[in-house]
């Protein structure tokens, strides 16, 4: 069982503008872009918190 995960919740948000132009250079359409890409980060920090195991650590 993870003690701390998920330790971080993240999202990458992308925004901006695209301009479509005619051959004469005039703007025929301007479009707004907006989106969020969820990122799930599980750093699994619980392993570093467990007591050591092995012959040196009975």
């Amino acid at each position, binding site marked *: 069982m993870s003690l701390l995960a998920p330790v971080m*919740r993240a999202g*990458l948000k992308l925004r901006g503008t695209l301009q*479509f*132009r005619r051959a004469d250079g005039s703007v025929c359409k301007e479009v707004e872009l907006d989106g969020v890409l969820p990122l799930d980060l599980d750093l699994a920090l619980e392993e570093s918190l467990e007591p050591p195991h092995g012959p040196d650590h009975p």
Partner: protein
Amino acid sequence: MALTIHDRIRRGALNGALAELNVGSTDATGDCRLLTAADAELAQVLFGNPAFAAATSPGGSVAEAQTNTMAADTTVTPGTIGKIQWRDRDNVVLVSGSVGLAGSGADMILSDTVIPADATSVSSPGLSAALVLV
């Protein structure tokens, strides 16, 4: 105790992710592709190299970065945009998602998904990427 994350972690994570757009040698820059739902390319706006300026921390739990100057695409095909891709210089797709209008449930929302018939080029005055990390 509440978990706290220094702004440097957010900036470092965002800078590292966006630097991936500069990887490769095939093309001079990475690109932002607009495609139909059937994967036909409609337009391709070129990132600069590097694609993004260094991230800043405007406050709160956010790191932000703005694109450097992007080059216009003069080979635009009119049609309906259904997908978007961000690719590195070797054309490896780093970000890919569906595109739709608000309420469509698409990954990326455009205020208008139709490239008009009289459009001959597309450019962007800038894109921004923000990493929210809490």
